[in-house]
Each structure stands twice: as structure tokens, then as C-alpha cells.
């Protein structure tokens, strides 16, 4: 079992100026499932490939189990990787694919067969062991890629968007199975995805990257309730947090409604343009005339059955502003209704530099 540590590790691709991964510091505990999440191009794959040994580390170092592997080739790191396109060996049968790494280690045929069959049983791949990858469905291929990784019992699993080529339903199902499998095997895992829902549901902890810079590492719940900066606030959560730029010179209000903050936020200290964040479930539709409520018109109602998201258009500092409000149960609101919106839960304040203000 293994711990993984990135120590100010950077990757600058030849011919580029800006590091694709910029001084990444990250400690991953033994047996942990850490998810790297961020928008496309944020450096997630690069970070993972640095750990795999497939990408040079230009600055800083990477440790596996306190062993410096910064310059070690992939085969000396005892890691297994699941690629986004699975990268199965097309000319080999499923069994040969899964046994390939063992064969390279010189493990005898019988032992190989035994371990491959064991992994195939875990992954329900037994009927397909003699097939070629091209004769498998997408979900089966994904499982072969997983099988290839678990057969080896490596120190660390690395997964680069392993579910992104599956259809939506299968993705949700496989997500749960994968998290369960990881917990059972207890192998330290670094999991890359651009899908924040996947990150939140699977990760023991989630690391958010943007432009190669680590924004925040936290447990999913903390990431959701205490985003460290404006980027994380906007990236995590679906539908996204309402983020409104406010001129803080004379107190902080949105469309005439004064925003309540908890005691750790000193509103009087703020100046310039700050951002106010409030999640849809912390806003409510209220009766007209409620103090500090925001008046507006309903433009869209998204009915999801157990809840509805109501888009309310209002005027803020002379511009149109749309707030998304969560309405529980079946809503009676319709497009075109005139409504009032009130703050009913925690709010977040981000200073002019984008950093969180207060606790």
C-alpha cells in the first residue's frame, strides 16, 4: 500500500511558457481515492501522467511511499493506469490483455491464468476472456481496462477519465461499482475527471485544478459548503452557485436585497467589486413584501420531480441578472410569474482577489 506526494511539481511542455501543472503540492494518504477535477485543459491529465512517469517533471518532485520517483521510468513505479480510451492491446485476447503486465514480470503461465481468472470473476468478465477487444461493448472494454489494472495489485491506481466514453446510465452505475471496488481493494487511487458530480460522489477528497494551479483540496462536503475561492464556488455544484459581482462601497446588496452574512464576515471592511455567492437551495420564493427580498420575473422553470429550479430575472446595478432558486416538491410557479426571492441559508463572500472572506 502506498502514499503519494507531489512536492511543488511542475510541468512545462516544450515550446510553451505557461506551466501545464504549476507547483503542485498534494499529499495522498494510503488507500485514499483522490479525485483531480477541473475544466478541460486545466492540467489534470498532465498531473496524472507526471505521477505515472509518462511526463517529465520539470521542477519539484514526486514521491511514492517516501521514495523519490521523480526521474524513475513508469515500469519502476509499480503503478497501474486506466486510460480514457482504455488503450487495450487490440491484437490480444481479453485474457492476454489482463495478463500482459504479469507476463512482463516473468510470472509463470499457471499463476498468470489464476490471477486473470480471479480478476475476471470480480469484474464479470469470465465469458469474454478469449475475445478480442474489438468484439466487446464499451462497458466491457472499460472493465477489461480495469481488470488489467487490478490483476497487478499495484501500489497505486491511476485513472484518466475512465468513464467518459460510457453512456450516461452506465456511467452512473459504473461509478458506484468502481468506488466500491476501490474501497474493497484498498489501493491508493488518483482519479481524474472533468465531471464535478463524479468527483463529488466518488472522491474521499477532491482536488480542484484550474490553469495548472491547485485551487483547493478538501472532502466533498467541505468543498461544497466552504469553497476557498470564487473559481471553486462556481465549479462545484449543479446547478452552479449564483455568483454576483457587487460594488461593496455602501454595504452589500443584490438588486436591492441586503445580503446577510455570518459573523466572521466584516462587510464594512470590503471595498471595490466583490463577489457574493449563494447556492440555489439557500434562496427561496417568498410572498411579496418580505423585507430584503428581491423582486423579479420567472423566465425558466426546470422541473425535476422532487424539486424544481426556478430562474428569476431581476435588475442588479443596471444590468439583467438571473438568479436560480431551488423550490422543493412540485412547484406552482410558471414562466412569467412575478415573484420575490429571499436569502434563507448561508452565503459566501469572495474579495476582489477572488479569495473567500470569513470562515
Amino acid at each position, binding site marked *: 500500500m502506498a502514499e503519494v506526494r507531489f512536492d511543488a511539481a511542475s510541468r512545462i511542455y516544450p515550446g510553451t511558457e505557461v506551466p501545464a501543472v504549476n507547483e503542485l503540492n498534494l499529499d495522498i494518504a494510503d488507500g485514499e481515492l483522490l479525485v483531480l477535477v477541473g475544466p478541460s485543459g486545466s492540467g489534470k491529465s498532465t498531473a496524472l501522467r507526471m505521477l*505515472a*512517469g*509518462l511526463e517529465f517533471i520539470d521542477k519539484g518532485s514526486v514521491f511514492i511511499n517516501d521514495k523519490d520517483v521523480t526521474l524513475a521510468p513508469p*515500469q519502476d513505479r509499480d503503478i*497501474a493506469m486506466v486510460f480514457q480510451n482504455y488503450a*487495450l492491446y*487490440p*491484437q490480444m485476447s481479453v485474457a492476454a490483455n489482463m495478463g*500482459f503486465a504479469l507476463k*512482463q514480470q516473468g510470472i509463470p503461465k499457471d499463476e498468470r491464468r489464476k490471477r486473470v481468472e480471479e480478476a475476471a470473476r470480480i469484474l464479470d468478465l469470465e465469458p469474454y476472456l478469449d475475445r478480442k477487444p474489438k468484439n466487446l461493448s464499451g462497458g466491457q472494454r472499460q472493465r477489461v481496462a480495469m481488470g488489467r489494472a487490478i490483476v497487478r495489485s499495484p501500489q497505486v491506481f491511476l485513472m484518466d477519465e475512465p468513464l467518459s466514453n460510457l453512456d450516461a446510465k452506465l456511467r452512473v452505475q459504473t461509478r458506484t461499482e468502481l468506488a466500491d471496488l476501490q474501497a474493497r481493494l484498498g489501493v491508493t487511487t488518483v482519479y481524474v475527471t472533468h465531471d464535478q458530480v463524479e468527483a463529488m460522489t466518488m472522491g474521499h477528497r477532491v482536488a480542484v485544478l484550474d490553469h495548472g494551479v491547485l485551487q483547493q483540496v478538501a472532502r466533498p462536503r467541505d468543498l461544497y459548503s466552504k469553497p476557498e475561492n470564487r473559481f471553486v464556488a462556481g465549479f462545484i455544484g449543479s446547478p452552479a452557485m449564483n455568483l454576483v459581482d457587487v460594488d461593496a462601497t455602501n454595504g452589500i446588496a443584490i438588486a436591492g436585497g441586503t445580503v446577510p452574512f455570518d459573523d466572521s464576515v466584516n462587510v464594512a471592511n470590503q471595498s471595490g467589486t466583490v463577489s457574493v455567492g449563494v447556492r440555489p437551495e439557500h434562496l427561496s420564493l417568498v410572498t411579496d413584501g418580505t423585507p430584503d427580498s428581491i423582486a423579479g420575473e420567472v423566465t425558466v422553470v426546470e422541473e425535476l420531480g422532487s424539486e424544481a429550479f426556478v430562474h428569476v430575472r431581476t435588475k442588479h446595478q443596471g444590468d439583467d441578472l438571473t438568479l436560480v432558486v431551488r423550490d422543493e416538491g412540485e412547484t406552482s410557479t410558471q414562466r412569467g410569474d412575478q415573484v420575490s426571492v429571499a436569502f434563507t441559508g448561508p452565503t459566501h463572500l469572495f474579495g476582489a482577489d477572488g479569495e473567500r472572506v470569513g470562515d
Partner: protein
Amino acid sequence: MAAVTSNSTREEQVKALQKKEARRRRLPLLPALLFTIVVTQVPFLMSLYYSFTKWTVTPPSPREWIGIENYTDAFTNMFFRQAAMTSVIMTLTSVVLSVILGTGVALLLDRKFFGQGFVRTLIITPFLVMPVVAGLVWKNQMFSAAFGVLNWVLNQVGVESIEFASKFPRWSIVGVLVWQWTPFMMLIILAGLQGQSSSVIEAAKVDGASPRATFFQITLPHLRPYIELGVLLGSIYLIQVFDHIVVMTGGGPGSTNVPLFVNQRSIGGGWRFGSASAFSIVVVVATIILATFGLRVLSGLLEGEEAA
């Protein structure tokens, strides 16, 4: 009961649709196909007919049907057997060597480096040289005892000049053929290499495969269809080699292959078109058998590599 009948009619409907689809796809091919058949098969059929006749020009005599006599001749004719042997050896060695060399060069060119396009073009040029010119250039500029570059190099290291083309006629020709055909094999195999997904190679690296193991267990099986194609095309062309031999050795000892032999028998002076036709038919049949067999063996070799 009703369900069964409706099923079977549906089956028939689907079959009819498939047939229609197949026809729709094949019909546009028809003109080209007809043209190809007329251009390639008619001369072949005529040769086939001639091969059963006695037909000499000097002295002029009417064509005369003699059955399989030309064929029995072919198998007992020692010179023909020698020529056939030369053809087989020349073709096999040239194809095998140019595939091996071509694979090597392709592996080298498959990585990024400065001036990649330029080097690639340079390496392809031998393939673009006309066979006659290639033969002449090698005979006079490379192999010649008096002015040849090779002999100049040999002289520098203290070895006496060798008149390659007359001393080693067969291997001199094989050398030139390999020189001309390596670029062709390289092109085909390079296309194969560039069609290989880079993440497969990375997966092998992560799985702990050495570069050697990656090549033999992953890259080579992937290249198999490309190598097969190269071998097939190369064999078909090289069995017909003629110009190089005429120019370099004129069919000197051990370098008369079947095309040259057939030529000598017919328009080259022998004027025996009937028996020459029979020889060429034998070669065509032998080539087909050889190519089929060769591909089997090759497939088997690569298949075995994978199963191991």
C-alpha cells in the same frame, strides 16, 4: 403459428433488402471491373491458348495445337528450372531483406526530429528511380571495378577491386533490388506505425514492458497486415524483375530469372512463343501458390508470437 409465418416473411424481406443494398454498392464498380477484366485477363487467356501450341517465327510456320507438350518440356528443361530457382531466390531474399530494412528505417523515422520531412523524402527517392537507370547507376557508379564508389571504399581500406556485377551477379542484383524496394516497404510500414495509438504504447510502458517486448508483442502484431501487404506487392513486382538484370549482367551466371529466360526464348532471339507462353503460365501459377503459402507462414509466425 401466425408469428412464425410473419417472422419468415420478415426474414425474406430483410434478405431482399440486403441483396438490393449489395447490388447498389457493386453496380458502380462494374465498368471499371469490365475494363480490368478485358485488359488483364484477355492477354492472359491468349497466352494460355498459345502455351498449348507450337508457334515459331523463324522459320515461319503456322500455329499448331500440341496439347501439354510445352508444359512437359518446361518441367524437364534444366535451364528453365535454373531460371525458376533464380527467380525464387532473388525474389525471396530481396523481399525479406527490404522488409527488414524498411521496418528498421520506418522505426527510426517514426520519431519526431528536425528535418523529418526532408529525410523522409530523401529516403524515398530510390523507389522513384527507373529500374533501368537504377541498374546502370549501380553498375557504373557503384559496382564498377574502375570507377565504382564501393571499390574506391574497398581500396581505401586496402582491399583489391572486385568486379561485383560479374563476380557476384545474383547478389549484386539483389543488392540493387533491396536498395530500390526498402523505401517502398518503409512507406507502408511507416503508415502502419503512425496508425498505432500512442496510448497503447504508454499502457505497455506502465505495464512494465521493455522496448523489446513492446516491439515484438505489440507493435509487430499491429504491423502484421502492413507487412503482409508489403510482402505481397513486393513479391508480385520482384518476380517480374527484368530491366536490372539486362542492364547489369545481361543474365550472366546465376542471374537469369524467368522473365529473362522467357524473353530469350521469344522476342529475344528464340522466337518460340508457344513454349515461352507455357513458361510464363507456370510462373504465374507458381507465384500464386508461393504468395498464398508465404502469407500463411508469415501469419503463422506472427500469430505464434502473440500466443506465447
